[in-house]
């Protein structure tokens, strides 16, 4: 299976700033041709409708917008270096980055790999403009130019270590680059390859060349295979594809636009002149590609032709295709060329064709070919088994095969055979989750090197996501995978796509909201888990999360299973069914433990490892369990025993929250031995516990002194002497359970400080029941250790509000407060919000646990939107020099070696210049070939002796027409058989022009 998958692509062509716009342009048969932008050169200056030296016959062409824009800051390229860089390099860099993103890969993921870069390029005009100004050749100018640097830049900036090379085979460059990239993949030289092509027109040189060669269309438009075809129009563009071996792409579940089944490259060799298209070689390269692809010609549904729209070129091309297709069964093969839309993009022509074919196979529709409606009947397409794409062609269901040709002016031909991507059925089926994943809500994350870039890209994503329905899970999953790696981070929870789009638009529009949803990642966040204690429980707590999040469900089930042998019934079921008895101590304590454990483990599985731990009273059990003090089963046994033993204590105790500090209360408590301090939540927040009568007496005093109080709804007086009757029984269980030193920094509410190598053993847990909860001290100590975030691990954010009332730290800032469960309505979204907050703070979550497998599906997000703020261009547009500079004497075409010695002989053979037709013919041949008329003997062969080729023949025809208007009716095809020798041509012309000249004479007579 030697097949290559096109997994990602990006491009920019005239009238189409990105791949989506390219497809749209193709589907509406759009015209990307415009006047030459003034930034390039003064088209009027170089224009001449009639043939003239140094002039072009057109002022139009296919030009891309904003070729000068370059996001140098993104690539950390200095403005000076950017200004010296060939814009082709800059365009390629951005294009390659976007193509990699389109493949569903964060470009940084490829860093350091052997990924290859193959760039097709034939224009070097930036160098011609800059490297000839010798005084200004700087180090930057040096590295900013040269074909090699186009590929090498991409390798450098993306840190790709595979082969990296530029390919110049003229107009076939980028398809040859694809061929080389495919071979490198198949030979195992690299596992990923970027194949690209680029072409930017900075000078009118090639337009003038096409004109002088008689190949230039006056309207600047290629009209492939059309009766209107009258030459080439130049086009610009940049395109890149990301290639992989098909089996690798399928194994990775990557999306595939299309498959390259086989490519072939050959050369004309010594043909009819170096620039002449050669039908036989084209035919051979097409056949070779078919063989390599293992297909018969009649399998090919359509072919993207080279199709430059020159009479000779079109004829050669359809003849070559006709060789393979003339006898085919079924419908003729459909043929078209994108050159009709925006001209011949030269070095980028192959990649333009490749992307068009890939998108056609991807969409199941082949766009119509511009100008095809007026078919060139002389091509006899039907007779060759071909038909033009005059309307879009819907491909039949199932796989289709397509061909793609690209031919170089110097005779290097390339052909590729592509095929539709394998159907979903051919891919490995998504395995069911072998372990629990998913938090019940997606998140959307985006990163960029600066806040401005983040903002710009958010806007781009918002627009793209609002255009079409998108599965929110896959959108979120791919945002994490592809849009990662930059310093500035954005994150929001995304319960569904519509909400996500609305949130993105809101963040784009509101700077304060934007600031709140973004963060700058330094290192990983230092997270403190705060486990909530008794009083925070309620019926159906975390039921929403249990329903929505398989991950949380798994851990609550796990805790329930561990508790069940000791509680006798399912704590989980008791909670989820909304049983009010969850408020009974017997159930509240194991239920809170189960919820705390499940939330803590869920967060851990998401990559949010706690750096610091704290549990408020009973919350300390889940904290200790998470810190490895004892295994889950042991913790479950201990907390179940604790709750049950407390439940058995007689009634008669209570608790009273007082807005006063422990010092203030000490004096009053001295007289009430039946009550005492149970909890210190803050400097002015204390909870008293003990005999209810004693508490009532105290409460009256507080009322008198206007100290605010609140009687807590508790069954027992926790942390008071009333707990003493259960301590012996509890200690017995605790001794059996044991308990070690926490493996993570744990701040004890028993001691009000960090545990310093002290075991949380039976003695600890017994004291923990009887002695007050020193939350304020414990939290203050924890906070001084500098956590960046607190995460409240419990069913409601009780501790979060307590900590807000504590005085701010002496140094540093308050940690960011988060709570994955905010209340009775909480579900996956609140947990996602917590993950989002931690992500903004630098956490790299284990996303694979946050999404169910079915959501871990590929989805192509809109690629990175680069800044167009910075512009780099040449000092000024190319201008025509006033007069021919004496120092510049461009030589004509190279003369055959040793010719001068033969001159004498030739002169002798020269025919007498007796008539105007002969004179005209000789002077035209002389002008085109660069010979003196005196040198042109009748026996000289045009091709073999005078070095003529097809380009020169086209020009010769034009020069002859100027001199002999009667030739206007004559076609190049008519002329071709008459070009054996100078004498033959002269004879033919004299014969052809004779009546016309006679009639002229008659009129003048």
């Amino acid at each position, binding site marked *: 299976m030697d097949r290559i998958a096109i997994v990602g692509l990006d491009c920019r062509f005239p009238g189409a700033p990105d791949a*989506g716009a390219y497809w*749209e342009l193709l*589907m*509406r*048969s759009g015209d990307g041709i415009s006047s030459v932008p003034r930034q390039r050169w003064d088209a009027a200056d170089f224009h001449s409708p009639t043939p003239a030296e140094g002039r072009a016959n057109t002022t139009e062409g296919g030009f891309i917008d904003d070729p000068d824009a370059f996001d140098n800051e993104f690539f950390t390229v200095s403005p000076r270096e950017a200004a010296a860089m060939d814009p082709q390099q800059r365009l390629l860099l951005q294009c390659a980055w976007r193509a990699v993103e389109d493949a569903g890969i964060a470009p940084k993921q490829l860093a350091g790999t052997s990924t290859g870069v193959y760039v097709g390029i034939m224009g070097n005009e930036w160098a011609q403009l800059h490297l000839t100004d010798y005084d200004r050749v700087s180090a930057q100018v040096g590295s900013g130019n040269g074909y090699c640097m186009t590929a090498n830049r991409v390798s450098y900036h993306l840190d790709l270590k595979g082969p990296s090379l530029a390919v110049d085979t003229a107009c076939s460059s980028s398809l040859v680059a694809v061929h080389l990239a495919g071979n490198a993949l198949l030979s195992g030289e690299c596992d990923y390859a970027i194949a690209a092509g680029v072409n930017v027109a900075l000078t009118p040189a090639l337009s003038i060349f096409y004109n002088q060669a008689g190949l230039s269309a006056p309207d600047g438009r290629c009209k492939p295979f059309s009766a209107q075809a009258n030459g080439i129009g130049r086009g610009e563009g940049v395109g890149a594809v990301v290639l992989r071996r098909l089996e690798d792409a399928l194994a990775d579940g990557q999306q595939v636009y299309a498959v390259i089944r086989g490519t072939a490259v050959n050369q004309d060799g010594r043909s009819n002149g170096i620039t002449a298209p050669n039908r036989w070689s084209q035919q051979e390269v097409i056949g070779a590609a078919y063989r390599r692809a293992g297909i018969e010609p009649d399998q090919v549904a359509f072919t993207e032709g080279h199709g430059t729209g020159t009479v000779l070129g079109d004829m050669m091309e359809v003849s070559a295709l006709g060789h393979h297709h003339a006898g085919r069964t079924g419908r003729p093969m459909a043929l078209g060329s994108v050159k009709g839309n925006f001209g011949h993009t030269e070095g980028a022509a192959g990649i333009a064709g490749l992307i068009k074919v890939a998108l056609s196979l991807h969409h199941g529709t082949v766009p*119509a070919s511009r100008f*095809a*409606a*007026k078919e060139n009947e002389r091509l006899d397409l039907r007779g060759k088994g071909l*038909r033009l794409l*005059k*309307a*879009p062609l819907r491909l039949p269901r199932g796989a289709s095969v397509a061909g793609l040709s690209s031919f170089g002016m110097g005779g290097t031909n390339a052909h590729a055979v592509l095929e539709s991507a394998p159907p979903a059925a051919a891919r490995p089926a998504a395995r069911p989750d072998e372990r629990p994943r998913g938090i019940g809500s997606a998140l959307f994350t985006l990163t960029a090197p600066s806040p401005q870039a983040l903002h710009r890209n958010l806007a781009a994503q918002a627009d793209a996501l609002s*255009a*079409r329905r998108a599965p929110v899970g896959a959108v979120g999953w791919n945002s994490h995978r592809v849009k990662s790696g930059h310093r500035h981070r954005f994150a929001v929870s995304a319960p569904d796509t519509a909400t996500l789009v609305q949130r993105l638009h809101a963040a784009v529009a509101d700077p304060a909201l934007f600031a709140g949803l973004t963060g700058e990642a330094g290192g990983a966040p230092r997270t403190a888990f705060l486990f909530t204690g008794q009083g925070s429980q309620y019926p159906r707590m975390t039921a929403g999360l249990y329903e929505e999040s398989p991950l949380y469900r798994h851990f609550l089930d796990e805790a329930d299973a561990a508790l069940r042998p000791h509680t006798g019934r399912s704590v989980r079921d008791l909670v989820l069914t909304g049983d009010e008895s969850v408020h009974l101590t017997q159930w509240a304590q194991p239920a809170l433990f189960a919820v705390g454990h499940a939330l803590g483990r869920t967060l851990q599985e998401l990559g949010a490892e706690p750096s610091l731990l704290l549990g408020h009273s009973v919350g300390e059990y889940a904290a200790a369990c998470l810190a490895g003090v004892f295994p889950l089963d042991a913790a479950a046994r201990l907390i179940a025993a604790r709750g049950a033993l407390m439940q058995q204590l007689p009634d008669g105790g209570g608790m009273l929250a007082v807005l006063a500090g422990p010092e203030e209360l000490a004096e009053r408590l001295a007289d009430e031995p039946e009550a005492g301090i149970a909890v210190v939540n803050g400097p002015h927040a204390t909870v008293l516990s003990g005999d209810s009568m004693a508490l009532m007496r105290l409460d009256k005093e507080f009322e008198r002194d206007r100290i605010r109080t609140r009687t807590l709804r508790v069954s027992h007086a926790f942390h008071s002497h009333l707990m003493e009757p259960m301590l012996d029984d509890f200690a017995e269980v605790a001794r059996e359970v044991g308990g070690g030193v926490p493996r993570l920094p744990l701040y004890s509410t028993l001691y009000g400080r960090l545990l310093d190598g002290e075991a949380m053993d039976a003695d600890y847990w017994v004291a923990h029941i009887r002695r007050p909860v020193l939350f304020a001290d414990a939290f203050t100590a924890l906070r001084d250790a500098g956590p960046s975030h607190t995460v409240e691990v419990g069913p409601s954010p009780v501790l979060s509000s307590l900590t807000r009332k504590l005085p701010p730290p002496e140094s540093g800032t308050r940690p960011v407060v988060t709570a994955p469960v905010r209340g009775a309505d909480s579900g996956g979204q609140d947990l996602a919000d917590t993950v989002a907050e931690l992500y903004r703070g630098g956490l790299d979550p284990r996303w694979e646990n946050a999404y169910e497998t079915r959501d871990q599906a590929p989805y192509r997000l809109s690629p990175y939107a680069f800044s167009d703020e910075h512009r780099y261009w040449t000092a000024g547009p190319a201008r025509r020099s006033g007069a021919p500079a004496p120092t510049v004497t461009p030589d004509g075409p190279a003369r055959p070696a040793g010719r001068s010695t033969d001159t004498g002989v030739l002169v002798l053979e020269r025919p007498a210049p007796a008539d105007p037709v002969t004179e005209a013919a000789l002077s035209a041949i002389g002008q085109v070939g660069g010979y003196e008329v005196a040198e042109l003997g009748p026996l000289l062969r045009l091709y073999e002796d005078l070095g003529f080729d097809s380009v020169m023949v086209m020009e010769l025809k034009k020069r002859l027409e100027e001199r002999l208007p009667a030739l206007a009716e004559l076609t190049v095809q008519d002329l071709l058989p008459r070009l054996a020798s100078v004498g033959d041509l002269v004879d033919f012309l004299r014969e052809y022009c004779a009546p016309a000249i006679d009639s002229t004479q008659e009129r003048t007579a």
Partner: protein
Amino acid sequence: MSDHPQDRQVHLASVGTALPGEAVGNAELARVLGANEEWIEMFIGTRTRHFARDLKTGAVRWSLADLCAQAGERAIAAAEVDPGDIDFVVLGTATPDTLMPATVNNVVDLLGLDQVPTFQLQSGCAGAVQALSLGRTLIASGEYRTGLVIGGDVCSKHLDVDRDLAKAAPSDLVNFVLFGDGAGAAVLTDEPRGAQVVLRHVLNRFTGLGRKPGQVIEWFGLADRYDDRQALTEDYKAIEEHVPVMAVEILWELLGELDWSQDELDYILPPQLSGRMTRKITEQLDVPSATEISCVADTGNNGNALPFLQIERLLEKMTAGQKALAVAIESSKWIKAGFALERI
């Protein structure tokens, strides 16, 4: 999806049309609207149109159902079929009288038919073709033998005669001078009869993925009746740019599907946007051997009535063995439509 012309031939037995009242010339229209007559002639190229509303008073004289029933009645009569033989009725329109009941049901009621399946297709200029497509499919299925397909529109709902357009911008003005009202109908059968024309192929394809609508017609309810939204907006630039290109593609797609050569074509029924645009599109279609059948310069753009008005003119000329292709484009969401007729 393309139909399967070989499966079962579907015939067009007759056409009937209905244009309300007298033709309204440019001079009269210009006078009522305060517009420039010359401008209408030069830039729209439409000479006359018909309105279901009284141009002087603005009073409604005919409903869409009235016009459709009239056209349907004429088509049934011309086909010489018993009204009781009509197995189904399909109506394509962009301007129903009411959202409910669907106008097709009132048409059927006016025709005195009962117990027949009815369908109404909400569509602009492609609605008539969509109705033909559905009718053809229903008959080709073998379940039905004779059906009435109708297309009609009453655009004058938006012709506010109280408005002075003397200073209106061309883009606004166009909406008032482009349109007209009317209806047309055809009887489709599973055997040759009446006009003896085979409906060879029908194309109906959405091609507007990701594209902005070229035309939007709003509708208003109690909650938004006072919203300051234009009832009818058109992106004329986009229409001028894309419709000719699409028309050429439709022509060639139909020819390709039918395996007809361009030279075989005797008649071409181009899209009827306006006198001027239709001339321009016909030039681009470039089928010099085929006779153009157009009506918009006389009837105005009356939407889904147009293909039937064109077929009516076609049938006057068409002789046995001749072939015709029709091209229609709905620029609202860029729908390509067309059909092929051959007289036997």
